[in-house]
């Protein structure tokens, strides 16, 4: 339970007011029966205070112990016991406070009706309390569940963004090592590209970025790969200003392009062209990444590499949709199309799209 139970919370206020009203009503009732105001208010006051105590007891009890489903009989028994104690206390206390024989006989006569009313009130109180605490528990549970889910999702998103092939890093370093021997300037340039690229991937950026920004980062990666694979690799990026301004979760494209390069280069012999096309269709950013493949020997794992499954999962975590990614194979070209809904407010480029 999140907040300490205070004496003055709403629930207690209502219960208190109810009891006060009951006290007033009872006083008037007794007065109507012909007792003096003094006798009437003493009776009503004493019984109400005792009733309030009983109510407090049952409510407090339910706060710490809530019977399981089907065991609510226990509450009923408890209410009965409390009512019985209450009536015994009234029967013993009232004649001492009001030593009038007429009153005493009235009290004994009215015990049954008093018992019934008190039982009803205490049971009512028990039910209200049970309901209230159940609700509170449920709310706390929900909040906890939500917090756990958010945490898990953030961790997963972080991990998905962080996936970087160690192959890529080691091979790039090897290329740099080779370049140092005969093209030191190019080696230096590649070190800078690699550093910029790594710095970009290490950012714990939660914010969406513009496509333009993402493509700049991607270009660093592509330039490095082009140095590694030389003339075999050609890349074409087609995008316009409208698309450039669209927003996209950071590092979403990189694993797909990495996949495309890997499959393009390792599934075919000869020159490979990897293309990326970004268009805007009804305010939705649509990006297609294509690579050649050999339909005769495409491995069973083709296109289901970690890159693709990671992106699929990420899109699902972001949008709770499975229909944002599409795969096509035609004329020995493998393409993946991503749809990025522009649900994010540009002013508030928070990771979570506005629900």
């Amino acid at each position, binding site marked *: 339970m999140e907040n300490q139970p205070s004496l003055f919370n709403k629930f207690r206020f209502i219960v208190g007011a109810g009891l006060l009203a009951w006290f007033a009503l009872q006083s008037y009732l007794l007065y109507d029966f012909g007792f003096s105001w003094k006798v009437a208010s003493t009776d009503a006051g004493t019984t109400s205070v005792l009733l309030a105590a009983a109510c407090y007891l049952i409510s407090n009890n339910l706060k710490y112990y809530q019977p399981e489903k089907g065991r609510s009989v226990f509450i009923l028994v408890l209410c009965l016991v409390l009512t019985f104690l209450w009536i015994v206390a009234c029967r013993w206390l009232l004649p001492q406070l009001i030593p009038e024989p007429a009153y005493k006989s009235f009290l004994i006569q009215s015990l049954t009706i008093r018992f019934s009313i008190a039982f009803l009130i205490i049971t009512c109180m028990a039910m209200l309390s049970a309901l209230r605490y159940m609700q509170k528990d449920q709310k706390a549970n929900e909040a906890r569940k939500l917090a756990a889910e958010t945490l898990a999702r953030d961790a997963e998103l972080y991990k998905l963004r962080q996936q970087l092939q160690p*192959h890529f890093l*080691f091979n790039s370093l*090897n290329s740099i090592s080779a370049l140092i021997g005969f093209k030191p300037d190019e080696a230096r340039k590649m070190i800078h590209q690699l550093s910029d690229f790594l710095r970009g991937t290490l950012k714990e950026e939660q914010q969406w970025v513009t496509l333009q920004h993402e493509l700049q980062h991607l270009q660093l990666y592509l330039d490095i790969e082009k140095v590694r694979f030389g003339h075999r690799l050609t890349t074409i990026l087609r995008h316009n200003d409208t698309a450039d301004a669209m927003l996209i979760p950071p590092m979403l494209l990189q694993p797909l392009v990495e996949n495309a390069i890997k499959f393009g280069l390792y599934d075919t012999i000869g020159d490979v062209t990897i293309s990326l096309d970004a268009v805007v269709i009804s305010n939705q950013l649509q990006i297609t990444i294509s690579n050649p493949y050999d339909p005769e*020997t495409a491995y*069973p794992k083709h296109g289901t590499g970690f890159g693709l499954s990671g992106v699929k999962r990420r899109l699902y975590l972001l949008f709770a949709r499975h229909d944002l990614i599409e795969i096509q194979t035609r004329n020995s070209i493998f393409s993946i199309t991503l749809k990025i809904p522009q649900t994010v407010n540009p002013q508030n480029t928070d990771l979570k799209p506005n629900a």
Partner: protein
Amino acid sequence: MQVKKVLIIDDEPLARSIVHEYLQQFPQMEVVQECGDGFEGVKAIMQHKPDLIFLDVQMPKINGFEMLELVDQSPAVIFTTAFDEYALKAFEAHAVDYLLKPFSKERFNKAIEKFLENQPKKPETTVALLETAASSPAQHDRIVVKTGTKIKVIPIQEVIYLEAADDYVNIHTAAGAFLKNKTMSFFEKILDPDLFTRVHRSYIVRVEQITRIDPYEKETHILILKSGAKIPVSKAGYAKLKQVLGI
């Protein structure tokens, strides 16, 4: 001093050039060719009969291990790879050496010295090397065979059944049959037991290709495949098949 012929096989030009550069300190080592993939590699090995090859593992179409399988008489091998824990474990024992990219000149020189010292005892290491190479993960997806001078990559899902043929295994696919110099027990080991069952001493069958199982003489049976092929089933094979099919 006898000149050693060296071949460098790597799909990255810069990765080849650094090996070439480091080799210049050894005048007795002569680079006869550089190759960008396994196909070129096989051709170059047959043509030049090199003494030593530098071989990358991850390459287009067929990887370094598969390339070695296609060579009848493998030269000494030094693997150059960026990151392959599996290769590290498997090849520690059998390859001349393995170099983890990026490698230093000192490390490279050590590998060359190792090669020069170990020169005579080549054949056994090659056999052992191939044994381990064959069980590399990539080989569970595809089988690489050589028909004449042509190299064919057969994805595992195209394999219908395997048939023993003397020292070879005949791999039957929709596109025809291909011989591979491997044993039946090797394939039994690497193929997914949920997909393939060894129904007979000489036959391994893709289970989903079976259309009928007919009783035959005594306790044996006969399988009819979708392709119409008839495969004998031994008593033990039938027991295994029943288990896989859940009957």
